[in-house]
C-alpha cells in the first residue's frame, strides 16, 4: 500500500468518523501489501525455497505455540482465586506422565524442525551451484564505502549501484568488501551473504521474473549505510546483451587508479558504467594487492567527526 493511500484512508476516517472501518481497511491493505513485497514475494527458486521453509517451520511451531498461549490464558482465567467452580489442588506439583509429555512435545517439534533445518541448509547452501541447463553468469560484488561495485569479469565491464542480470540464468556471485563489513541482499531473489575484506564469499541466485528489484546492505557499515541501496534489473537475454554492449561503450575504465578513487567514502547514489575492467581486479582486492578503502577523509579526521 502506498503512503498516499494510507494517508487518504486516514483522512477519510477523520471526515466520516468511521475510524473502526478505516482501521480494518488499513489492516487488510497492509496485510496484502505485505505479501506482494519482500521475502514473502519471491521471484526466484532460492527465495521460493526459503519462503517455503519459513512458512513450513512457522506452521509447525504455530501448532504448538497457539494451544500453549490459549492454555496459558485459559488456566490463568479458570483458576482465578474467585472461581469457586475450579478444581483446587494446592499441593499438586508433580506428575510423571505430564513430565514425560512436557519434555516430549518440544523435543518432537525440534526433531522435526531439526530435519527441516539440516536438509534446508544443505539444499539452499548459498555456495551450492543451482541446477540449470544455462551456464552461470559470473558477477563479482565489491562493497565500497558506501556503494556497490559489480564486476562482470567475462564481459570485462563493471557498474556502480546497479546490478543487471538476465532472466532465468543462474548467477554465481563472488563477494568481498573494500573495507568494513556489509551484507549483499536482494530480498525478493534470495539469500543474503556477508561482504568481508580479505575474503571472498559465494552466492548462487537465479531470477525467474523480469523486473526491477531493490537490493541493499543488511549490515550496518557507517554513516552512509542507509544510502547503500541499488536496483537489480532482471532483463531478457537481449536486454542483457544490450546492457553489456552499452557498458562496453562507456568511456570510463576501471583500473587500479579508478578503483582507489571509488574506494573513498561517498554517498553518491549515481549509477556508473565501466568498460575495460582490469583483469583479476576482484582477486587483487581480495588479496589486498589493491589496498583497503581509506575510511574517513583526513579532513574529517579531526578528533571529533561531528
Amino acid at each position: 500500500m502506498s503512503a498516499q493511500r494510507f494517508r487518504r484512508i486516514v483522512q477519510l476516517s477523520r471526515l466520516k468518523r468511521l475510524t473502526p472501518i478505516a482501521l480494518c481497511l488499513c489492516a487488510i491493505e497492509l496485510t496484502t501489501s505485505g505479501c506482494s513485497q519482500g521475502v514473502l514475494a519471491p521471484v526466484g527458486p532460492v527465495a521460493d525455497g526459503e519462503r517455503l521453509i519459513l512458512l513450513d517451520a512457522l506452521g509447525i511451531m504455530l501448532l504448538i505455540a497457539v494451544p500453549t498461549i490459549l492454555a496459558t490464558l485459559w488456566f490463568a482465567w479458570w483458576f482465578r482465586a474467585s472461581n469457586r467452580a475450579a478444581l483446587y489442588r494446592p499441593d499438586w506439583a508433580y506428575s510423571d506422565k505430564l513430565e514425560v509429555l512436557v519434555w516430549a512435545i518440544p523435543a518432537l517439534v525440534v526433531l522435526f524442525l531439526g530435519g527441516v533445518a539440516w536438509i534446508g541448509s544443505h539444499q539452499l547452501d548459498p555456495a551450492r551451484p543451482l541446477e540449470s541447463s544455462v551456464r552461470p553468469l559470473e558477477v563479482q560484488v565489491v562493497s565500497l564505502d558506501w556503494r556497490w561495485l559489480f564486476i562482470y569479469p567475462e564481459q570485462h565491464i563493471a557498474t556502480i549501484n546497479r546490478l543487471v542480470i538476465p532472466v532465468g540464468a543462474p548467477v554465481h556471485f563472488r563477494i568481498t568488501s573494500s573495507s568494513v563489513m556489509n551484507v549483499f541482499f536482494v530480498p525478493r531473489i534470495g539469500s543474503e551473504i556477508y561482504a568481508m575484506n580479505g575474503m571472498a564469499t559465494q552466492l548462487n541466485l537465479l531470477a525467474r521474473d523480469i523486473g526491477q528489484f531493490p537490493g541493499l546492505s543488511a549490515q550496518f557499515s557507517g554513516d552512509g549505510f542507509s544510502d547503500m541501496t541499488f536496483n537489480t534489473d532482471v532483463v531478457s537475454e537481449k536486454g542483457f546483451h544490450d546492457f553489456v554492449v552499452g557498458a562496453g561503450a562507456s568511456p570510463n575504465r576501471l583500473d587500479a587508479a579508478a578503483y582507489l578513487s571509488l574506494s573513498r567514502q561517498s554517498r553518491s547514489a549515481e549509477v556508473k558504467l565501466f568498460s575495460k575492467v582490469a583483469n583479476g581486479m576482484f582477486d587483487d582486492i581480495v588479496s589486498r594487492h589493491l589496498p583497503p578503502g581509506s575510511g574517513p577523509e583526513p579532513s574529517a579526521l579531526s578528533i571529533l567527526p561531528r
Partner: protein
Amino acid sequence: MFGRLTWQAIPWSEPIPLIAAGVVGLGLAAIVAWVFAKGYAPYIWKEWITSVDHKRIGVMYCLLALVMLLRGFSDAVMMRSQQVLAFHGGGYLPPDHYNQIFSAHGTIMIFFVAMPFVIGLMNFVVPLQLGIRDVAFPTLNSVSFWLTAAGALLVNISLVVGEFARTGWLPYPPLSELQYSPGVGVDYYLWSLQISGAGTLLSGINLVTTAMLLLDRYLGFHFFTNEMGGNPMMFVNLIWVWGHPEVYILVLPAFGVFSEVISTFSGKPLFGYRSMVAATMAICVLSWLVWLHHFFTMGAGADVNGFFGIMTMIIAVPTGVKVYNWLFTMYGGKVRFEPPMLWSIGFMVTFVIGGMTGVLMAVPPADFVLHNSLFLVAHFHNVIIGGVLFGAFAGYNYWFPKAFGFRLDEKWGRRAFWLWFVGFYTAFMPLYVLGLLGMTRRMQHFDRPEWYPWVLVAAAGAGLITLGICAQVIQLAVSIRDRALLRDITGDPWDGRTLEWATASPPPAFNFAVMPNVKGEEPYWGMKTKARELAHLLTAEPSYQPISVPRNTATGVVTAFFAVVIGFAMIWRIYWLAGIGFIGVYAAFVVFAWRDRSEEEIPAAEVARRDRENRLVRTSALAKGA
C-alpha cells in the same frame, strides 16, 4: 596536556544532547541540593553509598537500572521518531548522531539496564532466600556495583564530551578499528564496558575479546584489523561466544523470578521442580554451543550451519519445558492477578511468540532472508522485553514491599502493565512485518512506501510504552505518598513460600536473628502451614546473641571514582591523568587491605528488639487467621 580533549569535544552545534544533558544536570543538581538542604547527606553516605549490605546494594543496582532505562528508552523514542520523519527525507537526526543513538541504546539496555536489574534482584533476594546473612564477599559486591555505575556514568559523559560509538552495540571490526572509526566513540564504549565488566566479571570471554579490540586501537595490535594478518571474523566469533550465553545470563534469573511469582500467586508449589532445575542446567550448557547462528550468512558450509541451527533449536526444548511447568503450576491453583502475576502471564504469552520466531531464525535458510532485518530486531526485543524486562518488573513489584516495607500502588501497577503490554505488541509486531518486507535494521532514512505505514504503527507503540513508563513513575510517586496506607506490617504481604518472607519488611541488617533450619524447597511455607495448624509460632523465643556484620567501606565508591578518571583519561589520551587514576585505585585497595576492623557487632539487645517485633506481628497474624 589534555591529550585529544579540546573545547570542540562539546557538541555546541547540536541542541539535542546539550539540552538533554542540561536537563539531567539540573535535575541531579536539584536532587543533590535537596539532599543537603534536608540534611540527608550523612544518612545517604553512611547507609547507602558506603553500604556493603547485599540488600542495599541490590536496591542501588535496581535504581541504576531504572534510571538508565529512562536514558535507553529516550534513545528508542528518538530512533522510532527519526524513522517516521525520515521517509523520503533526512529526518532530524543526521547519520553520525543517529548511529550513536542506536549504539548507545543497545549498550545501555543490555549492560546498564538488563544486567544491573537482574543482578540487583538477585543481590537483594538470594541471600534472603538462602537464609543467610550476606554474600561471600560483601566489599567486592560494593566495588562491583560502583564500577557498574562508573561505566554507566562514562556512557553518559559521552553525550556531552565527545561522542559515543557509531558502530552498533557490538562494535564489529573493521568498522570499529581506528582506521574507520577515528573518533573517541568506540573508546567510550570500550572503557565503559571494561570498567563495568571488571566489576561484574560478566564472563572471561567478554573481557578478553573487548580487551583485544582495545589493544588494536591503543597499541597497534592487529587481532581484527583487515591488514597485517588480523581477521575481523575472529572478533565476530569471540563476541558471540560471549554474547549468546549473555542473553541466557539475563533471562535465566528472570525465569527464576517468574517461578517464584507464579508459584506464590497460584498458591501452589512450583510444578516439576526437578525438571525446572534440569532445564536450567541444560540451557546453561547448550547456550555455549549456538553462537554461530548469529552469522549463518558469513558463508560457513551447510554442515556447520545445519549443526548450529539444530543446537539452537534444542535450547527450545528445556525452555518449552519451563513454560509448561509454569502452566501446570497455575493448574489447580487459586490465581491472584496482582501486578507481579500480570507481568508473569504477559511474559508467558509473549515469550512463546519470541521463542517461536527465534527457532524460526535458527533454520538457516530462513535466516538467509531474515538475518539483520527488523524481523531479528523484533525477535530479540520480544524475548528481552517479554522475558528479561517483564521479569525484572515482576520482581520489582514483588520484592518492593520486602525492601521498603510498603507495597507499590496496585492500580497504577496494573495500568503500567497494560500500557507496556499493548505498547509492546504495537511497537514490535510491525517490525516483524517490516523484516519480512526486507527492511534491515539501523536505517537512518528510507524511501520505500510499503514500509512507511508499519513504521508509523511501531512509533505509536513506542508512544504507548512511553505512557507505560509514565505510569510506573507515577506508581512509585503515589506509593511513596501513600506509604502509610500501603505499609506491609507482616513481612509477608503476598502469602509467600520462600524464606525472604520469614523476616521483617524491610529486613534488619542481619537478615535473620537465628539462622533458619532449611528443610525442603519451600521451607517458609512448611513452617507457616504448621504454625497455622498449631496457631502459634513453631519455635520458642531463642536466646539472642550479638551478630557481626561487615563494616561499611568507601572502597567501592572511591575505586569507581578513580576508574572513571582512568577511563576518561584513556579515552582522551591524557596519560598523566590516567596514571593518577591508577595510583588512586591502588591506594584505595591498599587502604582497604590494611583496615584493622572489618566487622562490627550488633548487640544482642538490638537483635532481640528487632526479632521480637517480627515474632509479635506474626503471632498476631496467626491469631487472626485462626
